[in-house]
């Protein structure tokens, strides 16, 4: 469970210009919930996702995941948390271009020191679970966008995280592929009992979540009912 209390993030840009990307955000996200976050550009969505994903520390306030206060963790402990508990899916897929699909998925198991045999086996299974069992030896450039995002999802899930964070996972895909990816994400969420937090501009995607949040000007607003 995520507990955010007065979570604030300010960036000090060039010439000391300060931007408050998140302004005293206080919410809780229970385990296993599927949450979507919408909002205008610059509203702070990616910033919030970075904090939830332990990629960055808040400027003030507290943020705990399952009782651990992420705000106070050291760099190395943040890395550990990301390696074990958090799966990421990005808008641009972010696959390593020189590695095959199989190897890309394996990279997620490297920080966990999984033995090579088991690593290969699990990566293979993960690729099969996203429907890419036949494409393990392909390079990202040899795969379509939807296939690349499937590899990315396999990479995010192979380590069996508790949380799946996705920033515009369907932003680069056509409608048909978008629906396929959404179907995949939803089935994985259900099967694995994940906490899934998904940032999107697409209302069709956002509507599928259990809870819908809106971030604008650094302020959060629950729009599930709306």
């Amino acid at each position, binding site marked *: 469970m995520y507990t955010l209390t007065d979570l604030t993030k300010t960036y000090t840009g060039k010439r000391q210009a300060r931007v408050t990307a998140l302004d005293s955000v206080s919410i809780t996200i229970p385990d296993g919930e599927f949450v979507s976050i919408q909002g205008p550009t610059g509203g702070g969505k990616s910033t919030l996702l970075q904090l939830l994903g332990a990629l*960055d520390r808040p400027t003030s306030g507290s943020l705990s995941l399952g009782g651990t206060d992420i705000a106070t963790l050291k*760099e190395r402990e943040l890395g550990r948390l990301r390696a074990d508990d958090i799966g990421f899916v990005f808008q641009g897929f*972010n696959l*390593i271009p*020189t*590695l095959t699909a199989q190897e890309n998925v394996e990279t997620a198991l490297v*920080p966990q020191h999984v033995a090579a045999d088991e690593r290969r086996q699990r990566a293979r299974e993960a690729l099969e679970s996203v429907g890419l069992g036949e494409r393990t030896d392909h390079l990202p450039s040899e795969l379509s966008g939807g296939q690349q995002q499937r590899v990315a999802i396999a990479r*995010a899930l192979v380590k069996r995280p508790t949380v799946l964070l996705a920033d515009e996972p369907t932003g680069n895909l056509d409608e048909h592929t978008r629906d396929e990816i959404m179907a995949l994400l939803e089935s994985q969420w259900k099967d694995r009992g994940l906490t899934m937090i998904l940032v999107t501009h697409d209302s069709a995607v956002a509507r599928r979540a259990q809870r819908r949040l809106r971030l604008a000007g650094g302020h959060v607003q629950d729009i599930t009912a709306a």
Partner: protein
Amino acid sequence: MFGSYLRRELLGRRKNTIIIAAGMALAVALVMLVTSLTAGVRAAQAEALESVYGVGTDITVTTTPAAPEEGQEGEGGGGPGGAQFDFGANDGEESDGTTSLSQSMLSADRGTETFSADALTTVLGVDNVSSATATLALTNTSFDGEIPQMSEDQQEQGSAEGQGGGTPPQGGPDGAGGSSFSVDSFTVLGVDPSVSDIGPLSSVTLADGRLLTADDAGQNTAVVDSDYATTAEIAVGDTLTVGDTEVSVVGTVTSTGTDESAANVYLPLDTAQTISGLDEQISTIQVQAASSSAITQVADDIGEALPDTTVNTQEELASSVSGSLSSASALVTSLGTWLSVIVLAAAFILAILFTVSGVTRRTREFGTLKAIGWSNRRIVGQVAGESLVQSLLGAVIGLIIGAAAMLTVTAIAPSVGGSSTTENAGGMMQGGPGGGGGFGGAGMGQTADTAVTLTAPFTPSVILIAIAVAVAGGLLAGAIGGWRAAKLRPAAALGSLS
């Protein structure tokens, strides 16, 4: 994962890998070649010096020849101690209108002035001189030929022109020149036959017969250089005409020395002095100091005791005599060093720039890896490993190119001439007999040619240097690239799409 990621990366970004490896290969090959050439030149130089000065010689004592004075030239005598054939009007046998002449003479080398043998006693009296020996460098010149008889007119004319030193022989009875003669010369070195640890005899080895011994002092015995013996068809047991004396050849030797310390014929010193008429005269004293640290002091002391002589230490001679060899050495070492420093710096900068730009290009990649939990250490290790392997790949290619270059140098074996030439050309036969005026151009230069072939030896240390260079370059580029990668924020993975 480290290995397969590294391999995929190097193969996947081939252009990058090739550029870094090629730069490193060039640097490695150049450093190898320069290192090896420097070693080769040093070896050649040491060899040349050893051959010039003989084993164990620290100091040489000579007298500088006085510059020929004006007016001396026309007298037909050349420089001091110069050779001059002196044929009287009635010398030789006349028949059928030609005169047969034959004369052999032994005289001091051109460009050398002799000095009193007392100097040796003085040198031996100087502190810290462990041994010293005197030598007398001479040249034996023999003239053998027939000259057509000429009218008084022709003779006078020829004589006058002969003094000019360059006129071809002219005027036989038929008007087309009927002279036939040969001039033969060989070098003679008067040596102390009882001294063999220093001086010319220290750098000869016996080929046939026996060496000169203390018992040969004053005897008309000689040992002949084996090469000269072959050319002149002389064997042990033969007699040889030196000056006006017949000496018996007791042995042949091969010399490891060159012209400075070697000669065609070696005579006992006193015999050489008697035949040449240079009694109690010597041309060089070779001195060995008690210790290398004493050389400078000994040289100074000898200079004080013998103010009229020139005292050279081997070190001084090394710079002056080895001539182009030492400049070749300086060129190879300085130019080569600078060239390799520049190429090395360029290769390193190239590797660093490409590694850093590679990291920048892979910002999203490394950000993603950090986002999925890769530690900084692992990412730095990956970057450093990649650049190290690229550099080592360069080292392997460089080793091959470098080895090929070194083999080529050794195969071509360019010769680096180290020479101290004392040109006496044109001075030898000036003012000879009328018909022989044309000899003026027959240079009898005294060239101490110490040409040495340059090699580029391929040694394990060269390979080690090549690998060290590549490892250093790879680690440097890897460290800088890795440092850049470590600084990347994991949030870079979410950065705007470029």
